[in-house]
């Protein structure tokens, strides 16, 4: 398709499979793509699409049981499959790689400076004496401030974003022509993500480095890539310029993927492909752009001055503050550096909720949003502040006592990690039944069964699968079991802690629509905690923005998105890679 003469990387009909118990698993099935020098190609796909495996196979980093079955890989004029060590030579010399989960990708017992030097020496770009100086230069090039100090730091002392930048520095050591980045910002805060991606983009612009960006985040690819390839089930279903693929695609899978990616101006139901919208549209959900239920709902939740602090020794407090400095942006000054023995996870949180309201709490890591949600759910005792629920002062009751009281069933939680929040020893049926038995111990067996099946249906979980165990269910199914478990006791308030962050976008679309439908049918009140602004915008009416334990801004969702008043909020919104309503060619 493309001019093969000028291609830097040319992959032709690549197929990769793995040896597993019971046969071979084909992960990549005939993938062809090409990258020109200096170009950025994004490969997007959901989990299981084979995008990462494809990338690893290009440089010979497959696991031992993996094998390239067929295909050609040409890099910079050389055939990488011609000799066994061709790929090894390409590594660190022409092709560089950065990975997901940056801290784990660094040697924990070696200073980061030494690791960059190792990379330099490996590529023989500098001698032993020279490598220290050159390593320092690289650290500065990736915008690590106080590079001299950080040179001697160990990975566990640095933030995730900083570790990723070290990895980029290591990748640059060999002056590569192509950088392959496999989900480089997954798991990092949105603001950190922006810094990393901007750094990569600038490097590309200044050094002519070509980039192959592997990601599940369509918005990210849209923002930083000129061309996009879409993968599904080991095949490339579409390749083209960003605008072509995202706006004018004819391929159903791509359309579905793009549709499921939340973007401004779209409604919840638009996330689903037209064929699946039926059940939701029929009941009037997914289209709401105003408050879901009537006003006149009474006050359900009243939280005042909620705080959570941990009494720590001076030493630990100092470490915590130091960590906060590092986790913050660059080496900014510490706000109020009075040595204290209290570390606050949440400070002075207040909110009110009417029945039927949908509140979002958004923040990055360390913002205190999870701690807040746990306190409101009474799974954690607060240090200060009051919590009033439907007139009752539940804040005065210690957590352990609350869990045994009749009020427990009225506030339920859907947890973040679908697999981790299910007891591996309980079948889906038992998992959903458990809270019901605790709340209504005298209920009959038949009644139990019907309640569980009802809850499962409401959550969109097929009752035929109730006998399965968590490891036999897919991520989306696990998430729905978690929702059913929360719903079976008919709670008044539902707290959802990142309910879809571990799910693929298409599954997320389904689950979010399901939640929306439930909320209308059952008149649920919910608090949605998330780092994903787009999800909050779709699902909530009002939002609290949290940072370092405090609420920096609160109000109506649309107002805050359109005209945020706090600088941090602005920063947050800016950092999210939006899919704008219309993509203009050459937007970068």
């Amino acid at each position, binding site marked *: 398709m493309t001019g093969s003469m000028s291609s830097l990387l040319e992959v032709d009909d690549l197929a990769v499979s793995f040896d597993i*118990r019971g046969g071979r698993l084909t992960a990549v099935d005939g993938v062809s793509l090409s990258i020109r020098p200096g170009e950025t190609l994004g490969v997007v796909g959901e989990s299981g699409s084979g995008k990462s495996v494809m990338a690893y196979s290009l440089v010979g980093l497959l696991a031992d049981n993996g094998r390239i079955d067929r295909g050609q890989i040409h890099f910079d004029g050389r055939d990488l499959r011609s000799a066994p060590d061709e790929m090894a030579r390409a590594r660190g010399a022409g092709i560089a790689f950065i990975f997901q989960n940056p801290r784990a990708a660094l040697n924990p017992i070696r200073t980061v400076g030494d690791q960059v030097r190792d990379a330099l020496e490996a590529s023989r770009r500098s001698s032993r004496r020279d490598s220290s100086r050159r390593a320092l230069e690289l650290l500065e090039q990736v915008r690590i401030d106080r590079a001299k100090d950080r040179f001697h730091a160990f990975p566990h002392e640095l933030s995730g974003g900083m570790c990723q930048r070290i990895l980029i520095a290591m990748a640059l050591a060999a002056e590569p022509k192509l950088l392959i980045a496999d989900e480089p910002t997954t798991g990092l805060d949105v603001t950190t993500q922006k810094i990393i991606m901007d750094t990569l983009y600038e490097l590309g612009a200044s050094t002519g480095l070509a980039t192959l960006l592997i990601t599940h985040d369509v918005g990210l690819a849209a923002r930083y890539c000129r061309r996009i390839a879409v993968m599904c089930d080991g095949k490339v279903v579409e390749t083209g310029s960003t605008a072509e693929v995202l706006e004018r695609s004819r391929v159903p899978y791509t359309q579905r993927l793009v549709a499921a990616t939340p973007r401004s101006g779209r409604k919840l139901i638009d996330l689903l492909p037209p064929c699946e919208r039926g059940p939701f549209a029929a009941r009037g959900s997914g289209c709401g752009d105003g408050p879901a239920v009537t006003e006149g709902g009474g006050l359900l939740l009243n939280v005042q001055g909620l705080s959570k602090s941990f009494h720590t020794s001076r030493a630990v407090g100092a470490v915590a503050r130091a960590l906060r400095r590092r986790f913050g942006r660059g080496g900014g000054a510490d706000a109020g550096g009075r040595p204290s023995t209290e570390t606050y996870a949440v400070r002075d949180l207040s909110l009110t909720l009417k029945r039927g309201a949908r509140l979002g709490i958004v923040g990055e890591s360390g913002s205190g949003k999870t701690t807040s949600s746990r306190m409101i*759910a009474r*799974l954690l005792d607060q240090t200060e502040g009051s919590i009033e629920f439907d007139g009752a002062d539940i804040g005065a009751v210690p*957590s*352990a006592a609350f*869990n*045994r009281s009749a009020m*427990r*069933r009225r506030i*339920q*939680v859907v*947890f*973040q*990690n679908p697999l*981790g*929040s*299910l*007891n*591996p*020893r309980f*079948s889906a*049926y*038992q998992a959903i039944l*458990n*809270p019901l038995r*605790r*709340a209504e111990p005298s209920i009959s067996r038949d009644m139990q*069964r019907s309640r569980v099946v009802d809850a499962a249906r409401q959550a969109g979980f097929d009752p035929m699968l*109730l*006998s*399965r*165990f968590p*490891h*036999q269910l897919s991520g989306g199914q696990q998430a729905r079991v*978690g929702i059913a*478990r*929360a719903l079976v006791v008919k709670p008044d308030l539902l707290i959802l802690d990142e309910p879809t962050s571990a799910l693929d976008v298409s599954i997320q679309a389904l689950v979010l629509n399901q939640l929306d439908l439930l909320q209308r049918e059952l008149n649920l009140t919910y608090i949605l905690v998330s780092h994903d602004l787009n999800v909050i915008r779709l699902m909530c009416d009002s939002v609290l923005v949290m940072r370092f334990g405090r609420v920096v801004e609160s109000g109506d969702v649309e107002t805050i998105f359109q005209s945020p008043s706090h600088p941090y909020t602005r920063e947050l919104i800016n950092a999210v890679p939006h899919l704008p309503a219309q993509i203009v060619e050459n937007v970068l």
Partner: protein
Amino acid sequence: MSAELTHLGFADRAGHAVQAVARNPVSAAAFAFMPALLMLAALAPWIIPYDPDATDLDHVLLGPSALHWFGTDQVGRDVFSRVLIASRLDLAIAFAAVLLSFLGGTFVGGAAAFFGGTVDRVVGRATDVLMTFPLFVVAMAMVAALGNSIQSIVLASAVVNLPFFVRLARSEVSILRVQEYVEAARAGGNSNLQILFGFMIPNALPTLTVQVSTGLGWAVLNAASLSFIGLGIRPPTAEWGVMVAEGAANILSGYWWLAIFPGAALTLTVLCFNLLGDGLRDIIDVRTRR
């Protein structure tokens, strides 16, 4: 409907377990050998060819033959019968000791980690102190203090295993405590006790079971070693350690069967327990890696 539905899950898991074991022929052998061993020990009094205590001074120190498979010892007793009968004693001691240490250790360690705070710290410290001593030496001293009896050996062997169970239970529970599903259980209205017994212990059982298996091996080793050095079980009781001790005196005169056969029986039994433990560990690893 739910009853038959849950059965599906169990058969499925059993199937995977069998697969995992079958892949390692050695552990498969151990899994098969264990019941055979237990049966032999149980049926010993009825299958032995000779009375293990009957001396026969006309037929001392005879080598292995068709009549006496393992030969005879210095007072003419049939070594084979003695080895078989001794298995009952050693296995009984081992099971009793491990049962005690498993129950005691799991309870103490699990509760300590679950409730945390000072209790956890105290238990941790006490276990650390206990483990500073070579446990065999502690066992020696205990048997010396309590006298030469089976009960003292059982207690001493239980003490040797106890700190391992405490540590294991403590580490398992402290890991499980912060699992999200435990938090979910709290949100579901489960009390502490319900969480401990319904959610934590069932999930800690696989690892604990591995320790039970290796613990059985250690208990047998411990009991035999104590008898060998002259503490605990004394001659003329048929016990493997005692037999090796008696045989050791004769081995340098060439009468090797007195010591080697009971020694082999000891090794084989402990090996079986250890391989069983390894096999169980493999099954667990497979499941957790899924």
